[in-house]
């Protein structure tokens, strides 16, 4: 089994915002998990290869190709929570918010053994709700992300 490392950009973003809030008002509503490192998830090698293809395509700005690689990964292992998470992330990037939320929920379902990935999904869901303007659901999701 190969291990994949996921540095959540969303997490970084939230961390920065929160840090800014702490510095400015000392009233950050959320508890920051300080030792939360990269998410580690066991995927089979074929899936790992396709996820890294997808990452490369994403970095090159070709989100459709990235999605195609992720879908291939999912057709090989539909139980891979990391692949679902990455697809959710991609949909968020593409602005397909409802689907991003559904996909992140699917990933969360499958990631029972990986709380860090579940938290990354909740963060993602919170971001998606932020964009839809549903602040209540965004906050609920964020609480799950940070409440562990």
């Amino acid at each position: 089994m190969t291990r994949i490392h996921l540095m959540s950009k969303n997490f970084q973003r939230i961390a920065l915002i929160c840090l800014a809030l702490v510095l400015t008002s000392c009233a950050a509503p959320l508890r920051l998990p300080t030792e939360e490192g990269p998410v580690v998830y066991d995927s089979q090698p074929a899936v790992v290869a396709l996820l890294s293809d997808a990452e490369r395509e994403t970095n090159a700005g070709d989100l459709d190709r990235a999605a195609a690689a992720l879908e291939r990964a999912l057709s090989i292992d539909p139980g891979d929570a990391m692949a679902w998470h990455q697809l959710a992330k991609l949909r968020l990037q593409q602005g397909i918010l409802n689907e991003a939320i559904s996909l992140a929920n699917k990933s969360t379902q499958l990631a029972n053994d990986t709380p860090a990935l579940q938290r990354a999904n909740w963060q993602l869901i919170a971001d998606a709700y932020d964009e839809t303007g549903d602040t209540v659901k965004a906050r609920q999701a964020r609480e799950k992300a940070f409440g562990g």
Partner: protein
Amino acid sequence: MVAMAVRKKRTKSKKRKSKNAHSGLFRGLLLRVFFLLLVAAVGYVVYLDISLRKHFEGKRWALPAHVYARPFELYAGLGLSRDQLVAELSALGYRLTKNAANAGTYALNSRTVHIVTRAFDYWDGRQSEVSLEVQFDGERVSSLRDRNSASDIPVLRLEPRLISSISPSHHEDRKLVQLHEVPEDLLTALLVTEDRNFMSHYGVDPRGLMRAVVANLRSRALVQGGSTLTQQLIKNMYLTTDRTLRRKLVEMVMAVLLELHYDKHEILEAYINEVFLAQAGKRAIHGFGLASQYYFGRPISELAVHESALLVGMVKGPSLFEPRRNPERALKRRNLILETMSGEGHIDADALVSIKQRELGVTPRPAASNRYPAFIDLVRRQLQDEYQEEDLRAEGLAVFTTLDANVQAAAEIAVKKTLASFEQTRNLKSGTLQAAVVVARVDNGEVVGLVGGRDTGFGGFNRALDAARPIGSLVKPAVYLTALEQTDRFALSSRIEDAPVSIQQQGAPDWQPQNYDKLFHGEVDLLTALVKSYNVPTVKLGVGVGVENVVDTLHRLGIDKELNPFPSLLLGAAELSPLEMTQMYQTLAAGGFRAPMRSILSVLGGRNEPLSRYALSVQQTVDPAQAYLIAYAMQQVVRSGTAKGLNSRFDAGLGLAGKTGTTDGYRDSWFAGFSGNYVAVVWIGRDDNKPVGLSGASGALQIWANMMARMDLRPLNPIQPIDIEWVDIDQQNGLLADGGCEYMTNMPFVQGTAPRDFSPCAGGLASLDGLKLPKLDKPIERSDIKRWFKNLFKRKSNGSSVKKNNQQRSIEDRK
């Protein structure tokens, strides 16, 4: 001879001239006519030139869309035996060789297979040829290595099977090839046979023509054409086939014009793609590229010299030398071509002897170009949103679909064999039963197999998509799901009275639903009612939760069609297709995550440019906790309910889930079920809607079982959502049970919805007759301290909501 004739003509005309010298008027007229004719001729030639160039430079052919199955993904860890891989390779036309040196070949060793894959253009780019070593560990691929770089390959696609061509209306099918793909031998054979001076002439070949004239004069018939390849191309591309002198003249002029504008390579390439080589039913096979696939099942680049010679020999008479029908004649013709090649020094004499010994090597007649008309029907309907019919027929698109040829084969065989055996054992007239099947992948909704009727090779009425039939008990999971979603009222252990009931309906007489076995079963829990598919409790439950809520559930599960919220819907009066049912069960199988049924992955344009991609789309429409409860109940249907017949066929460890459906008078027999990876729906009925005498279990379930038994199934282990807990229940009353209870069962509940009161067998305080529910909100008092503590903990763990027991009031209260 020609020169003499001309000279004679001249002397004659001189005489005529002198005769008419006095008539200047006449001469002037003649000159004018001559001039006009000349202008007309030049004009005509210019016209020919323009139209010729316009056509040749534009899109020369209307190219059919080629439709492909899903490519086979190879990777370490894949459950695949060596034999299965070899079967796939031979379906793709790979040849078994000693060393696997060239693309499209493979070699077998004890635990490995060496393959040289073919390059292929996918939506996401070209995958080049790879020399591959596949290692097996029993029924599993243990490693994939690139033999050239000796490095591991994580994942690799084998090119997909071509499953259909959507041809132009004139049924010309072709697969364009470029000259560099064509083997040298084939070009040589073509030139020595059809046009030896091709590289040097200017479109017409006087020497060749002369030879033909002589031959024709000798036999006093048109036995030889003497046409150059250029002329043949002109004739095929632009002209009619009638053998008039005028056509011949135009052909020659155009041939010369073509040679003026284009080089030999371009002309040769056009010829190779144009030439007609076979007729397969309505479909005309044009070009050596497609002919190679049609006769040898392999790309043209992989042809050996004797195979090339066979195809070239067929140019002269595609029907006369058809190798499958006239093998002896074809062999003679092939060997004649080989001898000619040898005579010209292209094959040495020793080699010739052994080459001539080789067999024709043609594959058995391939199944019709459209092997899977019902599936392609679905593909075309889904393509219609984005593509015009004429684009499909002319633009040379490559359509990548989700079809899995092995699953499709399993479905087709199961339908044919099972129906035939039903007709035999039940003394039915052969051919009266019809069936339809849809198989999809659980998590992404990809349709992998589809059968539209028992005659799978024939298009016609596509029952999988178009037969709208009452769905019977297939609707029931939606009724129970709707109930379970009302968590403050229902859990799987909730009790319903199975007793006569009369339902009032607007504008219709009262309705007294009956159970399938015409019996009433007293008080039953929701789980039992669904597992045994009892009608009466289902109707009561559905009316209790609101038929309009059940309609909403059906829509969320993926039924787009408008549904009438009448009570009869609760027993499946809605008329829906097998495809719609598959959508519904996909959502249930995938834990509430609906993925629309799709048959297309992507489309490439004629120059392999990516055109469209059909992305995976997933929407969560049912809470995973309720989806989990329904999946559990459907597993019980197989374990102990109406589908328990599956137990003898499948390993219990697969945990299959399903639901039977039978409609009034046994007109429709349904079965819907899923494993961990596939969801499949089967329908059996008659086109004239007469009874078939089969229930869901005795009919559709049998096809389903025969099909799934041929497939590679993954066990169904629904992921338990975090808010699900398991609780021991006394089956006799739906109350909490413990070791002291005879009929104890362990059941899943959404947290906080399990009963809180103990059954008498577990020391509870239920009323004396044992079956009546405890009074609501009655405080539990018990001198037994142990029980008291136990109850206390149970209540705490269940969230201790006292409101809970309201839900246990059976819905009779609401009637």
